[in-house]
């Protein structure tokens, strides 16, 4: 619409228009106000901890309620590592599914399968948590982790990531469940991005004798590269903030460990476990400071992701 349509209304002389417009404006600014409030409350309440520990808070390994000495390093590393595992497992799967759905799937099956994948997204995260706890932990403890320790664990250097007692719970399992959770989201964004590629490009590639895979890998993907990265970053943002699915299976240990089989903690599961019982100003403030760190992290990742997706739309134009 724009100014032409808007100008049709300008000559109105009634009270309803400015009133209604003011009302909608008010609610729109309310959204802004809420975010501003969240940021300011987070910052204000983390000040005591940040003032005590300074920037060293971010890289301190300690988490000692006895001596009131806290640091964000262990939860932060846990958050990032589980999210990375989620990406490493999830992105290839998402790509495979997007490839399948856009190129290979017969038309009648396309919608049902897409719906099924989106239903995965609708399942609340706490369900993933209890399913992970009751079903996956024993499987990981008795089958998958021993197998990994016996095979990859023996290879020098990279084997260091696969050591230790197989307890099922830990960073690896948490990352695996996160992968499941971001899969539907990343897949659907990838599908959209792939479908936005102009048919002309695809058809000319086929015309030159390219196989389906080659069309996707060498034409569609490079064309929508920016959007795909944007999708991945959005998935990363979701994985970083996920709480319930992770809390059940990560083992809640405030310790850095090289092995992925070891228990660890993430920022959100630390908050979920400890916040209601944290006693003491510095303890509580440190937890809120953790929340602030998480917020800054997810905000940055999401902002980058969105920018990339917007740029992809601009570049690709309309399908």
């Amino acid at each position, binding site marked *: 619409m724009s100014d032409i349509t808007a100008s049709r209304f300008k000559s109105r002389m009634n009270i309803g228009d400015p009133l209604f417009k003011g009302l909608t404006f008010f609610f729109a600014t309310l959204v802004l106000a809420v975010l501003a409030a969240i940021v300011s409350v987070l910052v204000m309440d983390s000040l005591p901890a940040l003032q005590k520990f300074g920037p060293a808070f971010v890289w301190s390994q*300690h*988490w*000692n*309620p*006895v*001596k009131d000495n806290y640091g964000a390093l262990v939860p932060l590393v846990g958050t990032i590592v589980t999210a990375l595992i989620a990406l490493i497992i999830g992105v290839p799967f998402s790509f495979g599914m997007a490839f399948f759905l856009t190129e290979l799937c017969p038309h009648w099956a396309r919608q049902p399968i897409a719906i099924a994948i989106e239903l995965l997204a609708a399942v609340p995260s706490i369900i993933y948590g209890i399913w992970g*706890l009751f079903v996956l*932990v*024993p499987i990981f*403890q008795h089958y998958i982790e021993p197998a990994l320790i016996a095979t990859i664990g023996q290879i020098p250097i990279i084997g260091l990531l696969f050591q230790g*007692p197989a*307890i*099922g*719970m*830990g960073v690896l399992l948490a990352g695996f469940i996160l992968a499941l959770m971001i899969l539907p989201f990343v897949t659907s964004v990838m599908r959209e991005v792939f479908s936005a590629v102009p048919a002309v490009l695809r058809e000319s590639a086929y015309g030159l004798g390219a196989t389906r895979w080659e069309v996707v890998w060498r034409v569609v993907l490079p064309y929508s590269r920016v959007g795909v990265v944007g999708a991945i970053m959005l998935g990363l943002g979701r994985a970083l903030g996920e709480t319930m699915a992770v809390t059940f299976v990560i*083992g*809640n*240990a*405030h*310790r850095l460990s090289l092995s992925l089989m070891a*228990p660890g903690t993430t920022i959100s599961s630390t908050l979920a*476990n*400890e916040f*209601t*019982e*944290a*006693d003491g100003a510095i303890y509580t403030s440190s937890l809120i400071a953790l929340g602030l760190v998480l917020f800054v992290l997810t905000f940055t990742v999401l902002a980058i992701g969105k920018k990339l997706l917007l740029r992809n739309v601009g570049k690709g134009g309309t399908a």
Partner: protein
Amino acid sequence: MIPQPETKRGIMLRKLKSLSFATALAFAPFTVHAADISGAGATFPYPVYAKWAEAYFKETGLTMNYQSIGSGGGIKQIKAKTVDFGATDAPMKPADLKTFNLIQFPTVMGAIVPVVNLDGVKPSEMVLNGHVLAEIYLGHITKWNDPAIAALNKGMVLPAIDIAVVHRSDGSGTTFNFTTYLSATNAAWDEVGVGKAVEWPAGLGGKGNEGVAALVGHMTGAIGYVEHSYAHQNHMIYTRMINKDGHAVEPSLETIQAAAANADWAHAEGNYLVLANQPGADSWPMTAATFILMQKVQDKPKTGRETEDFFIWAMDKGDDLAKDLVYVPMPDNVVSMTKALMQTLTDKNNKPLPLAGHAL
């Protein structure tokens, strides 16, 4: 596109929405008031508090809502006055009680027991002591067939599997009592220290006594520390312990009572008393009392009175329920001291709270 008149589907959806809203509202006429008394804190006594609440409700119709969120949470909530009483098994020091204007009294005593998950081991078969427990939790002993463990368990076949150490991930009085005991029996534990939450050198964390029990149940080769009821109710494999006098004892009403026999409550300022590693041939070494905290000045006198009534009822009539769950009730002299302590509670205008009510 001309706006269509509302489709059948649209009408149906609208009706569905108002129907579900109406259904939700239909519950509203149930003007049952919220819980009369609310408390939060330790998971250690939760089984007995829950049974008491159930029985008290049957007898008086008053509800007691207890959220077992850990001793740290209980202390935090009562300081913030977001609950009517806090529960903790890590007693507050007398100085802190004065600062926050709280009273503290013990309700029951229970046993912390080590629980293990090993095939072929029966409850009460294995024997451990404080020194070895500390070594396990320090991460110095990592396999079940370690010579130190074998030395205490001659004749038992111990598997060569890794020990999966389980501790608490939340702020816990059980941890406080457990670490006090470890500190008393193994000098190396001092590097970790004593507290409701510590920087654990090894293992993974479970939330609440329930979480630890659940984790140990899930993993073969696991060891954890829980309050006795949790081990008992969930048919877990608990171990015997060697007490200060060198005897291997079982956790039971008798051994807890033996440990409590030396407890001098009369001279404990603010009722601050930690019962870990008590002497006595039959004493259970990891005995702990659990405490209730209440504000000295009650903003809501009626609720304060009801809270007092509940605990007086529990101390007078709840003994059998407690014993069923292997908690030892407080001896009579302590009960009288507690009742006297309750007389010191006042309302905002410094008037004492009358002790009328259901318990008498």
